[in-house]
């Protein structure tokens, strides 16, 4: 950042290129804003009668995330430990690291599209996609925090003659469990949002209802679905705040 003018120029050129790619122009932006507001007006009266019908799909969305999160956490624990330099043998570490990196680069939606292509629509591919989608984030964070453990802690357990499993059980897990659980609880929030999104592609739930209402231009019903979605996300935040307070106490386990 020694030459602000040069940075500004480079940024300007990049923005100009990107704007050309997306057909963005000042007039388009103004038009888009006006039309966006016009469309929003249609949404102003949510269809309250639709809420009872949408309660079932909303529950499906929540359950998808609730089942997928523990599964994803378990998978991530395995992959994360296998990818950590100081606990896993070399032959296991490289493939585990590679798989985690691969999953991180692959958006959940692609995993879901592939699973839907193979297995058809329904909650099953949704749960599997969300569970696999957790590996990239949770597995990487876990592997990193395991590798940050002070080597002396592990050595002190090894000198007593502990096997690899005993080292993991008595030195590694107590050290990384609090941060891992905090990340896992956060992942539940992420999964609720992703569950809405994946629903629209074929996992069912509120996301599917929402995109259906939109494509039929039933704005009032869509608005009810949007309100329910917001309620779900807020609810998930409350639940995970509660869990965090119950399980963790200032970075330590209760």
């Amino acid at each position: 950042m020694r030459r602000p003018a040069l940075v500004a120029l480079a940024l300007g050129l990049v923005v100009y290129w990107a704007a050309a790619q997306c057909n963005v122009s000042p007039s388009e932006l103004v038009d888009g804003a006006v039309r966006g507001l016009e469309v929003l007006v249609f949404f102003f009266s949510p269809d309250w009668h639709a809420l009872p019908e949408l309660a079932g799909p909303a529950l499906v969305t929540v359950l998808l995330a609730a089942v997928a999160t523990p599964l994803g956490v378990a998978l991530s624990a395995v992959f994360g430990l296998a990818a950590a330099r100081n606990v896993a043998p070399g032959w296991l570490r490289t493939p585990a690291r590679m798989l985690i990196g691969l999953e991180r680069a692959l958006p959940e939606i692609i995993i879901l599209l592939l699973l839907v292509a193979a297995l058809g629509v329904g909650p099953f591919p949704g749960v599997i996609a969300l569970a696999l989608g957790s590996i990239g984030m949770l597995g990487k964070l876990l592997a990193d925090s395991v590798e940050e453990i002070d080597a002396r802690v592990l050595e002190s357990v090894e000198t007593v003659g502990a096997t690899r499993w005993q080292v993991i059980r008595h030195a590694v897990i107590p050290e990384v469990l609090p941060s891992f659980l905090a990340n896992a609880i956060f992942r539940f929030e992420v999964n609720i949002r992703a569950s809405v999104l994946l629903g629209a592609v074929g996992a069912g739930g509120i996301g599917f209802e929402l995109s259906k209402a939109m494509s039929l231009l039933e704005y009032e019903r869509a608005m009810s679905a949007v309100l329910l979605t917001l309620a779900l996300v807020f609810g998930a935040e409350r639940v995970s705040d509660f869990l965090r307070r119950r399980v963790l106490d200032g970075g330590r386990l209760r």
Partner: protein
Amino acid sequence: MNSVAPAADVPSALFTPPSRHFRRRLAIFAAIGAFLVAASAALKFQPWLLFTDFHYLVRLAGEMLPPRIELLWTKPSLYSSVAETIAMALLGTLGGASIALALALLAAANTTPHPLLRTVVRFGFGAERATPNFVVLLVLLIAVGFGPFAGMLALTIGSIGMFGKLFADAIEQVDPAPIEAIESVGAGRWHVIRYAVVPQVLPSVVANGFYAFDVNLRAAIALGVYGGGGLGFELQLAMKVLRYQDVLALVLLVLVMVTLMERVSDFLRRRILGSTASL
């Protein structure tokens, strides 16, 4: 205390008798297990399908191989799809960050013109964060039609909530000393913001901007699937017409693109933040 005495030759650190702690942990695991079973039953989620239906997955893999890599030279429109996806993420991140920075000045206690305004803007950030990008995109598709323009706008709006909260918190944590120093020579609100607040929050703005770009690039692919243009849209088209060899080629292209862009933004972040001192 009904604990079992450890055998003499086992170090007690590695031998803990079943305790109240252990029983509590067992209860927690049992509760999680029971919940999983009940929720799976309610969802009609049958884990064993993974084994009984495994041959479908194998069949799909068979249909995807070998990936039709020749698309890279037989279908030049792929390159504009990649460019669209990257451009969407870039504009969404920059646009969202600019709008959020302006709003964050209204949402931070030490720069806001009025406390009530701070509450309103912060509530707006919270509401935006709770709204999935995909909901915003659905509204925009009706307003501006299909294509990368809608995707770009959805990412812009979708970045405001996250950025706004981060920036407002960063502004509230700035060191008040420079602000007082500048105020003492009679500077107005704008000078204070320009010379005391912005330089202090810029590093966090830059670092978070690069992180958000990585997130937005993945989101740009997902939004593309719903009609936001770019690679995601191509992928969904290939899926629709069951050209699975094309699908695998596109998935590989996504992997390469995401990995490369992550490297690039990592490199730039290190270049820029390594020399913020001279800002």
